[in-house]
């Protein structure tokens, strides 16, 4: 346990009786009341997550826009101040370094939000690429705490419990708010497929807000339901659906890879995959049985020959079926293809379906 970092809310999780477990180098809460209860709270009402483990990197300087656009797949030149884009950083071969959010804070001023497990790797990667640009890169991960308020009642909760009127924020925009002398960032973003907000602020402010939300009866939610929620709506998790071996083209996230913009790392490889077809494809699977496909289980063709593996799988919570996302040879990627999942000693029939199992309900 001692080698894992802790977030500024760690003691509060322990006091709430959360089941704690290592994730991305941090000792994180997996569940409080139970994954199903927490999942349903977010789908039907509201829940709050500690996501302080996420990393934050601030990029500024005369060439900040040019630089970020060079290491990022989306096109940040299309963004106004207050805008946010989702996209990836790629290796030259198209494999994924990380998926991230880019916040446009001002002219040549960007705030990058990266995955906890990748902080050291990403910062090293960004610094390496930055050598050729006139920019300043600051890893601010340890200065920020972060919470996510998610669910159909999120806007109401932000107003009534935290006195933050967010009705002016549209999906994927943010504002900077001065809160008792603390400059914080509030964005209409999340990782659950529901409407919701994320707040980046000092540890003290995050601790105060967490307390207010818990006191008001908002359900604390762990990483357990964060995974079931994001999975059901088809959002990828780095390490599962995106890896150094899985390009965003294979994963079906080509929308976030702007091949019509100036050169960026991985552009050529992605253009080639798009033109010639990627060798592998990420697909949804629905099992005909109740058996549950899990990460790493083998996916086979009708002759029980391996053609891929499960990246994430669950007994769905909002969807009452055994469902998975799997990376398979492209030849087996068509909707309706009959495949099998090797679970313990048996092979279970499955059908290729869309990998969005539950509809998102964002407020755009």
């Amino acid at each position: 346990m001692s080698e894992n970092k802790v977030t500024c809310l760690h003691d509060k999780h322990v006091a709430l009786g959360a089941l704690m477990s290592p994730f991305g180098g941090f000792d994180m809460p997996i569940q409080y009341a139970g994954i199903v209860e927490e999942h349903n709270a977010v789908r039907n009402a509201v829940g709050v997550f500690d996501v302080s483990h996420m990393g934050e990197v601030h990029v500024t300087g005369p060439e900040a826009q040019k630089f970020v656009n060079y290491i990022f797949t989306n096109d940040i030149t299309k963004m106004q101040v207050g805008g946010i884009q989702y996209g990836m950083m790629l290796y030259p071969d198209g494999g994924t370094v990380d998926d991230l959010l880019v916040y446009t804070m001002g002219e040549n001023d960007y705030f990058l939000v990266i995955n906890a497990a990748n902080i050291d790797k990403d910062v090293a990667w960004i610094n390496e690429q930055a050598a050729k640009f006139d920019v300043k890169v600051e890893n601010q991960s340890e200065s920020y705490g972060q919470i996510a308020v998610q669910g159909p009642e999120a806007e109401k909760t932000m107003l009534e419990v935290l006195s933050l009127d967010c009705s002016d924020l549209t999906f994927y925009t943010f504002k900077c708010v001065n809160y008792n002398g603390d400059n914080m960032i509030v964005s209409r973003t999340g990782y659950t497929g529901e409407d919701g907000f994320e707040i980046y602020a000092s540890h003290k402010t995050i601790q105060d807000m967490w307390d207010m939300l818990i006191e008001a009866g908002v359900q604390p939610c762990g990483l357990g339901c964060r995974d079931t929620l994001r999975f059901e709506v088809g959002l990828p998790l780095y390490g599962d659906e995106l890896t150094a071996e899985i390009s965003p083209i294979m994963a079906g996230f080509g929308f976030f890879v702007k091949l019509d913009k100036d050169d960026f790392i991985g552009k050529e490889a992605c253009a080639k995959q798009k033109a010639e077809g990627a060798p592998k494809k990420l697909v949804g699977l629905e099992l005909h049985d109740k058996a549950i496909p899990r990460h790493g289980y083998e996916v086979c063709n009708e002759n029980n020959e391996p053609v891929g593996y499960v990246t994430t799988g669950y007994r769905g919570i909002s969807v009452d079926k055994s469902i998975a996302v799997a990376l398979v040879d492209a030849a087996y990627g068509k909707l309706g293809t009959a495949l099998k999942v090797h679970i313990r000693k048996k092979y279970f029939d499955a059908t290729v379906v869309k990998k969005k199992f539950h509809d998102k309900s964002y407020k755009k």
Partner: protein
Amino acid sequence: MSKIIEGLYYSESHEFVKVEGDFGYVGITDYAQHELGNVVYVDMPEVDDEVEAGEDFGAVESVKAASDLVCPVSGTVVEVNEALEDEPGLINKDAFENWIIKVQLSDKSELDGLMDAAAYKAFIKE
């Protein structure tokens, strides 16, 4: 505080055996169900399957993970708890009442290698 029942046999992998004559009812303990959380699926063998002490005979799955079931005794499966197919969460309601398989025991001396209630109580406190 996990419930422990006197008179049952317990394994280190948190299965129990309740013996009635030549038969043993095998399930997971209250401690195990609590550690797992919401049980969403129980993978059970079929009637007439042979099971062997120390070998996997299925799995109990929570939302988060699959946990192998290790059979504490050898024998032949004579019944599986079909109620768990439609309602796996019964294990969370009462793990001891909702056994998973009924086994015709082939070697009752295997029971000597399992823990009694007092020993299991001490075991889960460690």
